[in-house]
C-alpha cells in the first residue's frame, strides 16, 4: 500500500516514485486532491477579495455607482474562485489523459497520483503569487517565477509574453517530476519520456495562452 506524501514526492521524487511503482494500492488520493483544491480555492478567494487583477474594472470607478463597481469585482472574484476550484483538477486530468495512452502499462490511478504533484506545485505557485502580485502590482504575465518579465524586455507581443510567462520554475519542476516519475514507473527510454512530457507541456501552454489571450481582448464595459 502506498501513501501519497506531497512534500516527500516533490523533494525526493526518485525514492517516492519507486515506492509508487511497487505498490498495488494508492491511499489518500482523494484527501490530497481535496487539500490541493482547497488551497487553490483559498488562494483565489483571497486574491479575489483583495481585488487582484481588477484594474480593468476600476477604470469604471468614476462612471458607475460604487455598488455596481463592487458587485462587478464580486462577479470577477467568483470567476477567480471557480478557476481556483477547477484549475488543479484540469491540470491533473489534462496531463493524465495525455499520458495514459502513452504509458499504457501504468494504471490511470497511478498516473493521477503522479499528476497530483504538478497540481500541488501549481497551487504553491498560486499561493506565493497572491502576495507578490499585491506587493509588486503585477499580473500573471509578469510573475517573477516565470519568463514573462524577461520576454517583456524583448517584445510587447501579448501572445508571446503570455506564452513565455507560462514557463515558470514550478512548471519546469513539475515537468522534471513527471519525467522522473515515468522513468521510474515505465520501461520507456528517457529521451522518449522527456519528449512526451515536453510535448504535453507545450500543448498545455498553447491551450492556456490562447484562452488567456482571447479573454484578455474581451472588453468590459459596465
Amino acid at each position: 500500500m502506498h501513501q501519497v506524501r506531497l512534500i516527500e514526492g516533490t523533494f525526493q521524487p526518485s525514492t517516492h516514485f519507486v515506492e509508487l511503482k511497487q505498490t498495488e494500492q494508492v491511499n489518500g488520493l482523494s484527501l490530497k486532491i481535496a487539500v490541493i483544491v482547497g488551497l487553490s480555492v483559498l488562494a483565489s478567494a483571497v486574491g479575489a477579495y483583495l481585488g487582484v487583477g481588477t484594474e480593468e474594472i476600476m477604470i469604471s470607478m468614476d462612471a458607475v455607482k460604487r455598488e455596481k463597481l463592487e458587485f462587478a469585482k464580486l462577479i470577477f472574484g467568483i470567476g477567480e474562485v471557480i478557476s481556483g476550484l477547477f484549475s488543479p483538477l484540469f491540470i491533473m486530468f489534462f496531463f493524465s489523459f495525455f499520458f495514459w495512452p502513452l504509458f499504457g502499462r501504468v494504471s490511470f490511478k497511478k498516473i493521477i497520483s503522479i499528476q497530483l504533484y504538478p497540481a500541488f506545485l501549481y497551487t504553491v505557485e498560486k499561493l506565493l503569487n497572491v502576495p507578490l502580485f499585491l506587493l509588486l502590482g503585477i499580473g500573471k504575465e509578469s510573475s517573477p517565477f516565470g519568463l514573462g518579465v524577461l520576454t517583456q524586455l524583448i517584445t510587447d507581443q501579448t501572445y508571446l509574453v503570455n506564452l513565455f510567462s507560462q514557463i515558470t520554475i514550478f512548471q519546469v519542476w513539475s515537468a522534471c517530476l513527471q519525467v522522473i516519475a515515468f522513468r521510474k514507473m515505465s520501461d520507456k527510454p528517457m529521451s522518449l519520456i522527456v519528449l512526451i512530457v515536453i510535448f504535453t507541456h507545450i500543448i498545455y501552454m498553447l491551450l492556456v495562452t490562447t484562452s488567456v489571450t482571447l479573454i484578455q481582448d474581451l472588453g468590459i464595459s459596465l
Partner: protein
Amino acid sequence: MKKPAFICSIITSLTLVISSVIIIVNTDYINRSKAMPVYMITEIGDLRETLPTKGVVIPANLYSIYYDRMLGSIKEVKVKEGSAVSNGDALIEYNTTHIDDEISSLEQQLDRLTILSSKLEDDIADLEQEQLDTSVDLEDQTIAQNDKIISSQIREKEYQKQDIDMQIDQIDQKIKQLESVKENYVVKSKMDGIVTKVNPFTQSEKEPIVSIESNQPYLIEGKLSENDIIKVQEGQKAIVSAAVLPRQKNEGLVKELKMTPIGKPSVEEKESFYPFLIEMAGAVDNWRHGYHVNVDIVLEERNDVVVVPDNVIQQKDDKSYAYVLRNGILEKRKIQLGMKINHRQEVAEGLLEGERIISKPSEELRDKMGITMPINELYLKKESIESFTNDQTIRLLLKGLFD
C-alpha cells in the same frame, strides 16, 4: 535529484526570481498597478498663520457721572453697584421741587384763565342769541340800533377772549418748557454696561456719583515681545477664546499696538514687551471683565482654497506633484504650492475640490498606473445584480476565470 543538479536548479531559479523582481521594480518595461492605494478627497478650506498669545478681557469704555452743582441736590440714585444698565436708563434724579412748584402755580393760573375764557365764550353766545331774538319783535330802526350795540359788545368780548387764550397758550408753553427742563434733572446712561461704583452722598464736582463700564464690545489687553510685535499690524484679525470657555471662538481686530514698552527697558532683559489692544467684533454675552483669554493673531490667511495634507505631495527636481486618481488610473500631476501651516498645504494650482489624491505616494508610483482595491462588502447589495446585463456578467466571469 543529484546534489550538483539540485544546487544548479536553486541558483538558476533564484537568479530568475531576483532579476525579474529587479526589472519589475526598477524599470518601466513592466506594466504595473498599485494595489490598495489610500486616497483622500481634496477639500476647500481656510489656512491661517497665527501668532498665539494671551490676554485679559477689559471693558471698551469706562464712564462716570459727576455731581453737577447747577442741578442742585440729588433726590435719588436709581441704580446699585453691579446693576446692568442699558443705554437710556435713568441713573440719577436731582431734586426738582422748585420747578414742580412753579409748574403747579402756572397750572393754577391756567385753570383760572380757562374758566374765564369759557365764561366769555358763554357771554358771546348769549349776546348772539339776544341779537337774534330782538330782530323778530322790534321795529326796523330800533333793530338796527340794538344790533349795533350788541355787535359792539360781542366784539369786545371776543377781544377779551382772544387775549385770555393767548395767555393760556403762553402758560402752556411755559409749563412744557419747565417739563423739558425737569427732564434734564434725570441723568440717563449713554451706553450699555455694568454699574461699578455708586456714591449718592457726594457734594464734590470731582467725585463721580455713578461709574459704568461698558460690557460690549469688550477689548482684549495683552502684551507681545519685540520679536512678536514686529509681525503684527493694526487691523489684523484675531481669534479669541476665554480660558474658561475654550470652545467658544470669537473674532476681533487688533485695534492698537502701543509703541512704548511695558516698564523700563533694560539691557539685561532678553526682550522688551509692548501692550496691544484687540477690539471684539461683536457682543460676547458670557464674558466678564478680567477673564483670561487665548489669542491667535492671524498674520496671514487664505480662505476657500484647496487644502491638502503635506504628505500627499511628492517633490522631485524642485517641482511638486500629486497623484490624482481618475477613472481608475493614476495621474501624476504637477501642482503649484501656496501657504503651508502645520502640515496643511495650500494648492494654488493643479488640483480642484473633490478630486481623489493618493495619500503618502511612494516612489514606485508612476503616471498612468492602474489600481486595484479590495472588495468593499458594505457596498455589496443583492439588487445590484439587476444592473448587469447577461453579457456583462459572462464577460466578468470569464475574465475572472482566466485571470
